């Protein structure tokens, strides 16, 4: 199939539809409105249903109901809207339902800005709502990668019966890039005998109950143990990471999303000055590529690490936990919506090298 020039927030919903998503529930918020708009035009044409909910709270609960019925279902929003969805996401995690949530991050806290940001890393990777749960969090750094990850997102959601978040920044949503919708490797997907589709007392299928209430301590423990075992399996099997120019590097940058692309330009600028800098780019923010980062950092050539984010250093905490004091780490970035340039990142690396 030929490449097509597409905006991220149109390519993402198209990829979702191609991944079998037929139900979308959302609420308008900038900068992600192209996603529901695209879905509202396309889904009725493919036998699906788009519904604009009365709020993000309602939208995520419609996702809950649709997922309970066994559908491939998705919602999208941007930071303040994703905050509103957290209650529902916790229920979806607790009820062990699959779904995909797209967050086009904007600046915060509060109403913040409508410019790109990476300030929702904590919320996305540490749970976000109440209780001990995780989302699988996928962070694309190009429109093509966002398209490819949509298929992965829906498959992982079904395989592990968990909500999956596509965590992108406003740049991915607004940027136009050539994309190709190609065939994806089919993973073996489980049946959904737990879905509520109607109970026949004379049939063989047991009564389906979708629920996250376990009033007995032992039962709640059992549910949590099941979740934790699943999270462990995800950590073992599903980590995705890009290592760029890391072989023999002196400095390792850790960055994700569009910031990682800016860092690649900074790496080129440093190379011009004769300084070898590499990049570890987590594609799964949760599970975080801890082992992979540690391996890269263990190289004798590596003197230090630098995390670059549009945040106050949220992912940097995970980097520090992974490196665990074995080598110096540093952070470059600002909270809010300030996107750093390649030049200033390179300048910072070179300056701190001399210091």
């Amino acid at each position, binding site marked *: 199939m030929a490449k097509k020039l597409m905006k991220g927030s149109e390519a993402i919903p198209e990829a979702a539809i191609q991944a079998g998503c037929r139900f979308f529930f959302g609420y308008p918020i900038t900068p992600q409105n192209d996603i529901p708009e695209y879905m509202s035009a396309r889904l009725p044409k493919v036998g699906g249903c788009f519904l604009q909910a009365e709020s993000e*709270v309602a939208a995520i*609960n419609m996702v*809950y109901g*649709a*997922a309970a019925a066994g559908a491939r*279902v998705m919602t999208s929003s941007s930071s303040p809207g994703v905050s509103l969805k957290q209650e529902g996401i916790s229920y979806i995690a607790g009820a062990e339902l699959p779904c995909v949530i797209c967050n086009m991050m904007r600046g915060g806290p509060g109403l913040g800005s409508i410019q790109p940001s990476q300030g929702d890393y904590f919320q996305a990777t540490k749970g976000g709502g109440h209780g001990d749960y995780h989302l699988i969090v996928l962070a694309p750094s190009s429109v093509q990668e966002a398209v490819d990850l949509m298929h992965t997102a829906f498959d992982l959601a079904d395989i592990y019966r968990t909500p999956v978040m596509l965590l992108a920044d406003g740049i991915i949503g607004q940027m136009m890039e050539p994309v190709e919708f190609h065939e994806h490797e089919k993973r073996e997907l489980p049946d959904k005998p737990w879905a509520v589709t109607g*109970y026949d007392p004379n049939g063989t299928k047991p*009564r389906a109950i*979708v*629920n996250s209430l376990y009033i007995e301590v032992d039962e709640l423990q059992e549910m949590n143990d099941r979740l934790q075992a699943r999270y462990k399996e995800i950590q073992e099997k599903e980590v995705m990471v890009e290592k760029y120019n890391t072989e023999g590097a002196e400095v390792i940058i850790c960055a994700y999303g569009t910031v990682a692309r800016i860092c690649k330009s900074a790496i080129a600028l440093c190379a011009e000055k004769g300084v070898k800098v590499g990049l570890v780019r987590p594609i799964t923010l949760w599970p975080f590529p801890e082992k992979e980062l540690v391996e890269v950092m263990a190289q004798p050539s590596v003197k230090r690490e630098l995390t670059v984010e549009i945040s106050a250093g949220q992912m940097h905490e995970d980097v520090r936990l992974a490196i665990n004091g074995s080598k110096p780490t540093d952070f470059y970035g600002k909270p809010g919506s300030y996107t750093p340039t390649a030049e200033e990142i390179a300048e910072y690396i070179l300056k701190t090298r001399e210091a």
Partner: protein
Amino acid sequence: MKTVFKKTPVLTDTIMHYCPGCGHGIVHRLVAEVIEELGIQNKTIGFVPVGCAVFGYKYFNIDCVEAAHGRAPAAATGCKRVNPENIVFTYQGDGDLASIGAAEIVHAAHRGEKITTIFINNAIYGMTGGQMAPTTLVGQKTTTSPYGRDPEHCGKPIRIAEMIATIEGAAYVERVSVDCVPNIIKAKAAIKKAFQCQIDRKGFALVEVLSSCPTNWGKSPAEAMDWIKSDMIPYYPLGVKKDTTNE
């Protein structure tokens, strides 16, 4: 011998956790009897709330989903949109529907969502220990209105059936009561009509049921039923508030 009355198989054999004399048990039974009589057990999906009816999935012998507090109409919407051939209902109390879930119920009605809502109005929060509800009567003492509900301070009780009846998408809205056998028989007829409304794809249907909470009202089960009649019905008049099912 011919059976005049026996427990419907659409209720499970699990003993309900409700306090003695609680109206929830009556309404559960009516809903289950209606599902049996309409022959829709194998395609009905129940969405139960947060509140006293949170364990409804243990009692309704059908596929069930436990929804977050107030969100049952939204969750039911998602399910109904995926499988329109299913009969989907929500069962919600007054804290769930009239307070935290006010937006979700209004917009389910506004969209004319083809679902059925059974709304239990017992003028109090039961599960959490008898706090004031939006439906608590003026002067009624609860654990968060210990001097009686003061309308100057927190308004007058909300009439949900009348409010929902003003919404275009609502096809059938009725308020009933379970205070006495004749009213229980009428309540069942209303619940049946509300399910039929969905089967016929006429639009959103809601039945508000005035029900008792003897424990949190501090009354015996019989006194509680009397109080529905003496105090609730005058403020919450029974009857059909809207019916466009024949149009």
